[in-house]
């Protein structure tokens, strides 16, 4: 495992990352609560993935690089534009515009059909390479999702193409109730890279700086034309799978307790303290601001109007005659 010992990252960057991580957890909790109040649908909290998401996003260039998330990461991508969170709130409350993260944010919407986003990322990287664009694509998928054929097919093809793509396996120990030991006998998820002939590394995913460095290295390689990298970011899912899940049925409490010791927020807070960047007031201010930011997102989201006939738009660029007929019938009701 790459060690997360602190490096030359400037203090302001470290502070920005910590701010982002605190925000991510708060946003996630707020959305979770919205579901409990019947104001949002099923959603998956980020708890445990803050460091790896924020670390990765800081190592990328939002102007040229792309992020293709699974579903747990979107609350942590503030660096890629404030639209990401605003739209994710819409997504969670069930508004169709939630799937539309507007330009210039280079972030795809949540992917529910697991691992299908990996071929998309590889295709995108392939296209960027052909177009001689400067960036790369980074895709997140879970440990469980690595069992899907799409992951293997895409990672393998990425190798052949030397595509500028970074594949991040978020190993949080669980796929709903299924532990990684039921998922694979591979020594770890980085080992899977041997099947594709690409580099694979395991990173401490609770350490934002370690993640930052791993992604920065992979990005340098990708952009230099040296091809894809598989990064396994090891963490632990600190919350339930989603609002619909009861982890006490299957998560061993001692395992969870041990994982909480390595809570990514705590790890980063320690780094902040080590650098003399942390204070209670500072933390309170960050949280207050995040809270206000989230409040604005929710208020705007819930106020956003929606014509039910929107349901017929964007199926094609222009509706087929049949769809147009259905829309007319619907509106005549």
């Amino acid at each position, binding site marked *: 495992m790459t060690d997360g010992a602190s490096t030359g990252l400037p203090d302001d960057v470290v502070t920005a990352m910590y701010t982002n991580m605190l925000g991510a957890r708060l946003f996630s909790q707020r959305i979770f609560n919205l579901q409990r109040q019947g104001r949002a649908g099923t959603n998956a909290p980020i708890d445990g993935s803050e460091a790896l998401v924020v670390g990765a996003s800081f190592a990328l260039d939002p102007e040229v690089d792309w992020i293709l998330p699974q579903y747990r990461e979107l609350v942590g991508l503030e660096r890629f534009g404030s639209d990401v969170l605003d739209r994710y709130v819409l997504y969670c409350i069930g508004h169709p515009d939630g799937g539309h993260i507007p330009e210039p944010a280079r972030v795809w919407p949540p992917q529910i059909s697991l691992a299908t986003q990996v071929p998309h990322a590889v295709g995108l990287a392939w296209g960027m390479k052909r177009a001689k664009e400067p960036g790369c694509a980074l895709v997140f998928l879970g440990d469980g999702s690595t069992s899907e*054929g799409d992951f293997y097919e895409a990672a393998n093809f990425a190798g052949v193409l030397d595509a500028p793509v970074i594949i991040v396996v978020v190993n949080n120990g669980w*796929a709903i109730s*299924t532990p990684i030991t039921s998922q694979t006998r591979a020594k770890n998820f980085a080992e899977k890279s041997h099947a594709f002939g690409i580099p694979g590394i395991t990173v401490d995913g609770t350490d934002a700086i370690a993640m930052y460095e791993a992604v920065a290295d992979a990005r340098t390689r990708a952009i230099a034309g040296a091809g894809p990298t598989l990064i396994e970011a090891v963490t632990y899912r600190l919350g339930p799978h989603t609002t619909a899940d009861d982890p006490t049925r299957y998560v061993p409490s001692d395992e969870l307790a041990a994982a909480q010791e390595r809570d990514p927020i705590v790890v980063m807070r320690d780094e902040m303290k080590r650098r003399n960047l942390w204070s209670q007031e500072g933390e309170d201010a960050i949280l207050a601001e995040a809270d206000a930011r989230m409040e604005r997102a929710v208020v705007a989201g819930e106020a956003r109007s929606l014509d039910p006939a929107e349901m017929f738009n964007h199926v094609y660029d222009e509706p087929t005659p049949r769809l147009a007929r259905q829309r007319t019938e619907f509106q005549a009701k």
Partner: protein
Amino acid sequence: MNMLEAINHTLIAEMERDERVMVFGEDVAQNGGVFRATEGLLERFGDERVVDTPLAEAVIAGTAVGLAAAGMVPVPEIQFLGFSYQAFHQIAGQIARLRYRTRSRFEVPITIRSPFGGGVRTPELHSESLEAQYANIPGLKIVLPSSAADAKGLLTTAIRDPNPVLFLEPLRGYRMIKDEVPTGEHLVPFGQARTVTEGSDVVVIAWSFMVELSRRAAAQLADEGISVRVLDLRTIVPLDTEAIIEAVEQCGRVVVVQEAPETNGFASEIIATINDQAFYSLEAPVQRVSGYDAPYPVGMLEDHYVPDVERISTAIRRAVETEA
């Protein structure tokens, strides 16, 4: 008993009856299934018969083929029908054909259970009604219970059937649908539609959760003096053509209700079947009520998308009002 309980009890009964029966899939063992349909099976039958698989639908379906060849009776679960797409090549290309390809050397007594259908604010690809995409594939049987009693009777038949069965469970009905479930062994044969309510002015043909909505529409219209028969197909392959013909002959007017998109949904096949075999009994065109030809939408739109009692009632009125 609700439908979920009926399914759970049936799985237990069949696993007790036949020790070749195996249940496997994502989160079915330790967690008892994300809806608890397989609750308690692991404790009862052990981890050789109740298995949490990796997250990979193609190999869930594909290993079922091999297990069957080894003499097992596989009852895999696909967590949501939308994710059966990942296994489509195994279901449509392999499971449906192995008997045919091998002239019955290999039997395929596989029952794939999977929930589907909308109305409960699930994320993308959790709500889609895909039965029509499977109905065009010879070799499969496709079963869609609409009551708890039928869930028991049809699941029992499915597990004992030596052919591959897609057993599609209405997500919205899991807990909402409650009825008297026969205790003890209970088998409902495939290909026998069920008359849910008697009626003579018009017949509404439906399956799965749309039966429940059609029943409500029928009850409502009874007050208006319209006598509505509701026919629950129960299985779309095999199809109870006789019951359809008989109902069309007696009522002359027909409504077909499906949750799936209009174009080439299974309602089209019902209409084609009526055209083939009961054309002269039709007093008016068949009315079809469907989801729209748009992808299943997100939460705030889904109640507009899925057929509801009002749309069914409107179609029924139109069917009876249309001139002969």
